[in-house]
């Protein structure tokens, strides 16, 4: 087992670097998942809105402000014209509505005046909110056209808009945490893939240095045994990395990680990490150039994670994108994570599906592993 022991000495020589990586990535995972957009329901997010009223304070505008408060987060900023763009730029607001002068009078006169809006380029929820706000004006306008006076129209419109459908079926308390756990594990798939490729590649570089490789080849320890020991070393190390991220999820989200779904999600991520290891092993065997290794790790990890739905939830991706993503193990991992927490009852049917997907994931790993074996055998023959 000398090579196995030696593996850890090599790791020790890279230790400061490895620890820096893991810490940086843990930090990224922590910040990313504790930010406010760390949930999978985009439409629940209320935009931060700034309302500027250049009209008088009429019933129309006052009630509009009331309704606006319900569907969004009004930000109380006193800003002048020039500073609006600053507010958008610094993310203090994502949506600015300006009520122009004489709006109410024009509105009553059916001149169909328009409110001026400005939106930050990175805000999704503002568009949805605008649809809701439009309803207010449309309803008030219908009332006034049909003979009601403005005050009556606005109060009737407000009471109409209060009628929302009751929705049954979600236990609110658990839901928020479940969403966060799903987001965390999906996001972390990117980090784990990038981390494992880089670290495994780094260590393998030592073994693949021309002179070292040749000396190892003529040693009495069989090539197979060497490979097995190196793999065992990689495996141990990968498990350690996986553990640190799993522990962090327990620290962040507590008890929910020990529910059946939580445990399934952890098992799912463990299998995924093994698949990532096989990918990293393949790359480490093929590529020896350190600079290229960094670029490749970034392209593969970032690219495949985007396509598979780690940053943008799968339900928002187009069917063409998802079609390509099916060839990526990340896709199946994320699909399973989503499904595990979407389960309402833990029955045999659901479990079968989840374990089948885990099986698919596992097959990816086997495939990459076999591929690596074939390639390294070829390389040996060429030597």
């Amino acid at each position: 087992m000398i090579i196995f022991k030696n593996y850890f000495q090599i790791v020790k020589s890279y230790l400061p670097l490895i620890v820096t990586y893991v810490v940086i990535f843990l930090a990224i995972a922590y910040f990313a998942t504790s930010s406010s957009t760390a949930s999978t329901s985009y439409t629940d997010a209320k935009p931060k809105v700034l309302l500027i009223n250049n009209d008088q304070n009429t019933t129309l505008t006052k009630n509009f402000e009331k309704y606006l408060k319900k569907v969004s987060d009004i930000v109380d900023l006193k800003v002048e014209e020039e500073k609006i763009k600053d507010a958008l730029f610094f993310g203090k607001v994502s949506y600015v509505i300006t009520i122009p002068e004489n709006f109410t009078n024009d509105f009553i006169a059916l001149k169909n005046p328009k409110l001026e809006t400005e939106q930050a380029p990175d805000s999704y929820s503002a568009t949805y909110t605008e649809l809701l706000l439009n309803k207010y004006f449309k309803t008030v306008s219908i009332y006034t056209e049909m003979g009601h006076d403005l005050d009556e129209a606005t109060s009737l419109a407000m009471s109409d808009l209060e009628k929302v459908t009751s929705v049954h079926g979600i236990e609110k308390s658990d839901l928020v945490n479940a969403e966060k756990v799903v987001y965390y594990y999906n996001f972390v798939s990117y980090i784990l893939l990038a981390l494992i490729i880089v670290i495994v590649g780094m260590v393998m570089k030592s073994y693949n240095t021309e002179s070292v490789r040749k000396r190892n080849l003529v040693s009495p320890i069989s090539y197979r045994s060497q490979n097995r020991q190196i793999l065992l070393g990689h495996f141990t190390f990968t498990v350690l990395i996986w553990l640190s991220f799993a522990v962090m999820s327990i620290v962040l989200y507590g008890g929910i990680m020990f529910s059946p779904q939580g445990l399934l999600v952890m098992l799912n991520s463990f299998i995924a990490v093994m698949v990532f290891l096989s990918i990293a092993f393949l790359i480490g065997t093929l590529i020896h150039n350190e600079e290229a290794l960094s670029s490749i790790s970034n392209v593969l990890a970032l690219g495949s994670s985007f396509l598979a739905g780690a940053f943008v939830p799968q339900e928002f991706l187009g069917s063409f994108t998802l079609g390509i993503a099916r060839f990526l193990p990340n896709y199946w991992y994320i699909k399973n994570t989503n499904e595990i927490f979407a389960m309402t009852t833990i029955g045999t049917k659901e479990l079968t599906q989840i374990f089948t997907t885990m099986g698919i994931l596992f097959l990816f790993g086997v495939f990459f592993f076999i591929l690596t074996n074939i390639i390294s055998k070829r390389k040996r023959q060429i030597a």
Partner: protein
Amino acid sequence: MFGHIFKNRIQIILHDRVLLFWTLIFPIALGTFFNLAFSNLSSSTSFEVIPVAVVEGEKLDSAVGLKDLFEMVSKKGNNQLLEITYTTKEKAEDLLKNDEIDGYIEVKDDPELYINNNSMSITMVKSILDEYRQQSSTIENILKKNPNALEEGLMEKIMKNTSYFEAQDRSDIDASVIYFYTLIGMMCMYGGFWGLHTVEDSEANLSKRGARVSISPISKQKMLLASFLAAFCIQIIEVFVALFYIIIVLGVDFGNHLGPLLLLATVGSFTGIAIGTFIGVATKCKVDTKITIISMGSLFLSFLSGMMVIDMKYIISENVPILAKINPVSLITDAIYSLYYYSVSSRYVTNVLILLVIGVILGLGSYWFMRRKTYDNI
């Protein structure tokens, strides 16, 4: 001599095909992936029909206009929104449990929705039902005051789609551009690899070739400048090719400020290379370590400017504004942002200048570290 070194470095860089390939592929591949991932967000036309069930019964029949509404939204064709199964409550509960429908609607005093999990589709169904309830209420109120309203064209008014909002400026810009902004920032930082490359071959402790070069009579100044210039040319070409791909082939809209954008990319690349050079010369670790510092450093800095999670940009600028002012990726991202909002303005110019200053300081710093080095042993 200068020309000779310059030409030589260009040849050496072009020879490192692997690195050349991957640093070029990196922005192009990621840009393509981003485009694929976001293509669906902005296109609201591709839409899957939502399967729901509706519980039959008296209450459903007596709800004015509800059945008509359901018929309208479930009509086969391009505008079909829902796929409705009319059934009993028990059957509907079963269908929901087995995940064959996203939710079912039961009419009590008003339509109520039963679901398993929240999602975009459920929000859509809920809005349809909300609209029904609100409009019914409006119609009722109007008819109370004016029983002839229907003849006076009430339904046309309800059906009409008027918008009371008008977007100023360019509020139709895709929300996904921020990812491309940070991609450009990261691309410029990857110039650091070329910067490192530059010094690898002229520093004695980094490579054998470096040892030979460092004892040659050539002045360090000339060496540094010529190699830097060579790396700069290659990096600029890569960046411009990538920008061409992103803007023309992928069609991402950066606004009408192409000139300032190119200037920004140029200065950004200069700074990226300077950072790489400085790390190569000023740190005392193996080449591999330096490479990973540049790679992970760029990634982390990009993260801090909002590449994976947009909020980071705002969190940092609110809590640690100094960081946003010296993080090169942030400087580039913010400059592009300000081109979008204010067109060429003092903010843009400030950022470009800070980038330039960082680059120059690091460049001079690298030279200072390169001078008069002696080694006891290598």
